[in-house]
């Protein structure tokens, strides 16, 4: 019987909604306190909401626990409480062992410093001692495959190099409990699988991992047990396959992203990649034929509307777009399916945007979530920062050419 290393009792976190809305200036707070003292002090009791409530959990030693749920369901908040970044409002948690958290890749990196300096700095911030970092330094650098660049300032690194070094530092943390938030979704597919291997290794040595991910296939592969959070509450906990299936079923049946209220004449609910060669719903791993599906619920019949879709890169540059005019749609759920002969993109994060307009007036316009991960193997060994977007096989020939006289 394995022992419990994390236990939480009725854990809850409350935020004040007004916090972001006010200007955050001392001047204004003072002015407000003087001008309307009643409202100033009552505001506290008015605009509170729970991002997490009644969370009772037990995590065993050596277990990889998956944490799933929609955006805003409280996954990150739970990790932040367990890693002591933020404090709970009620309840308590008890943790046995040293905790390391990995909520972001490259925590504490400074662009002006070299790879070597950043390794020490980031390692120290993540909780490693100086001696420990010195001992693991060579291992970290070779894991990141950056031997030649350790003494180059990180600002000259490509995105891929930066991410590899950042993850390598994090992967060499040896806490008894590791909390990971969505950071495995970086790098090319080869580096990803290397990271996954490292995670499995961590758990085999008796350490405990809590992993947040939107990539359900990853959760299925890595985790024994999964907890599903829904609107800050614990919806279901149990064996990975069971909980993930229930979650997927819920996603397809209601199909609603938590942040999108049901209203309007029509609404996009979710999107997915179709086609047999894709490994997961929102991950593109082929450069061949690709199908993209958007689910649109039409609440009132639409006549002669305009439908548009655009693919953007991470910097919001449009890469591909298609529009259609004069479309008639009946009420009900529609699946809008685009099939592209090929979508040869380099690895990275891309996003889709779909919109329906009725004579120029917006019916729905959706920056679709989650974003699309492209994990193809790059054909060309070009530096990431100058490689562009296209991943197309090419041939290179250099032949002597006679100068025509």
């Amino acid at each position, binding site marked *: *019987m394995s*022992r*419990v*290393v994390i236990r939480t009792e009725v854990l809850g976190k409350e*935020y004040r909604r007004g*916090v972001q809305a006010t200007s*955050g*200036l*001392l*001047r204004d*707070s003072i002015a407000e306190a003087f001008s309307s003292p009643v409202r100033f002090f009552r505001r506290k009791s008015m605009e509170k909401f729970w991002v997490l409530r009644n969370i009772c959990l037990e995590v065993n*030693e050596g277990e990889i626990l998956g944490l799933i749920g929609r955006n805003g369901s409280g996954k990150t908040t739970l990790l*932040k*409480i*367990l*890693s*002591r*970044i*933020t*404090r*709970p*409002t*009620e*309840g*308590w*948690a*008890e*943790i*046995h*062992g*040293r*905790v390391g*958290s990995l*909520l*972001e890749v490259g*925590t*504490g990196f*400074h662009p*002006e*410093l070299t790879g070597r*300096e950043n390794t*020490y*700095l980031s390692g*120290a*911030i*993540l*909780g490693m*001692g*100086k001696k420990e970092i010195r001992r693991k330094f060579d291992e970290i650098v070779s894991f990141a495959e950056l031997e030649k660049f350790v003494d180059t300032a990180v600002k000259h690194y490509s995105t891929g190099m930066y991410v590899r070094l950042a993850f390598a530092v994090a992967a060499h943390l040896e806490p*008894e409990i590791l909390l990971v938030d969505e950071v495995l979704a970086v790098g090319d597919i080869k580096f990803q699988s290397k990271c996954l291997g490292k995670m499995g290794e961590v758990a085999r040595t008796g350490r405990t991992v809590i992993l947040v991910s939107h990539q359900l296939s990853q959760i299925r592969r890595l985790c024994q047990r999964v907890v599903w959070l829904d609107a800050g509450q614990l919806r279901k906990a149990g064996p990975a396959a069971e909980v993930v299936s229930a979650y997927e079923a819920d996603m397809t049946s209601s199909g609603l992203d938590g942040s999108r209220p049901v209203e309007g004449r029509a609404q996009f609910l979710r999107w997915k990649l179709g086609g047999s060669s894709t490994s997961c719903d929102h991950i593109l791993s082929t450069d061949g034929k690709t199908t993209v599906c958007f689910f649109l619920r039409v609440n009132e019949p639409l006549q002669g509307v305009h439908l548009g879709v655009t693919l953007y890169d991470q910097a919001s540059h449009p890469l591909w777009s298609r529009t259609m005019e004069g479309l008639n749609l009946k009420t009900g759920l529609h699946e809008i399916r685009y099939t592209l002969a090929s979508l040869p993109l380099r690895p990275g994060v891309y996003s889709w945007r779909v919109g329906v307009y009725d004579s120029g007036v917006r019916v729905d316009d959706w920056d679709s979530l989650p974003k699309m991960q492209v994990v193809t193997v790059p054909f060309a060994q070009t530096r990431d920062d100058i490689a562009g977007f296209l991943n197309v096989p090419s041939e290179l020939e250099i032949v002597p050419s006679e100068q025509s006289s």
Partner: protein
Amino acid sequence: MTTNLANVEQVHGARAASPVQRIQPPRAWFELRLAELWQFRELVYFFVWRDVKIRYKQTVLGVAWVIVQPLLTMLMFTIFFGKLAKMPSQGLPYPVFYLAAVVPWAYFSSALLTVTNIMVENQRVITKVYFPRLVLPVSAVFSGLVDFFVGFVVLVVFTLSYGMRPSFPILLLPFFLLLAVMTVLGVGLWLSALNALYRDVRYLIPFLVQFWMLASPVAYPSSLVPERWRWVYGLNPMAGVIEGFRWALTGRVPSPGSVLYVSVAIVCVLVLAGLLFFNRMEGVIADRV
């Protein structure tokens, strides 16, 4: 039942083996948490190291600037307050009189500014990983000392070149430096936490520093303050620091005396109150910074 008992025992065994943390809503008002800060002393070192490294990497002038700045300030003071306004200098040559004040003052004003901004500048780290937040202001207070020591060398060279040979009081110099460091920490803890919660606090700093300099014996000797008000003057701990520097380095001016006792007392209160306030705000900072 037996399995239950075994389980309980195992949990207790685990408690003995590895550190147990209990995470709960903030309660106590009186948490200093200095032991935790000590555990993270290596991180303090790394933050100081980072600050210094970046500061010297990004500036063209680097060390030269650190030397030139106090010298130029001293020169201005000597010309305008010394030669033109004929300010009394307690028998010290003006360059020594002013440099002995400018060097600790430059540390105080720049460190105070750094500490105030430290939580906001490290916002990303604060919201992504845990370490005692106290590490940040403490490291900011120390990283300013590197510039101070460069300036201090200049100060010593000047003092010696004017034929002054420090005697016994020089041994107390580290104590006056500590007083300056603690003043920055005590005030900085309040300002850094407040600045994380309210962004306009940083705009108050230049005014505060200017005001504070006029209230400190930088441009004039504290002997201008009437004797019976001298202790009130000591409520500004920088008065004790600057008078202390002049006294310890040259040995030619009267020791700070009553000013110093009041300064030490007020700094103790400031640091203690700053620690309590900072720790109280710590839980809120990650949510609001």
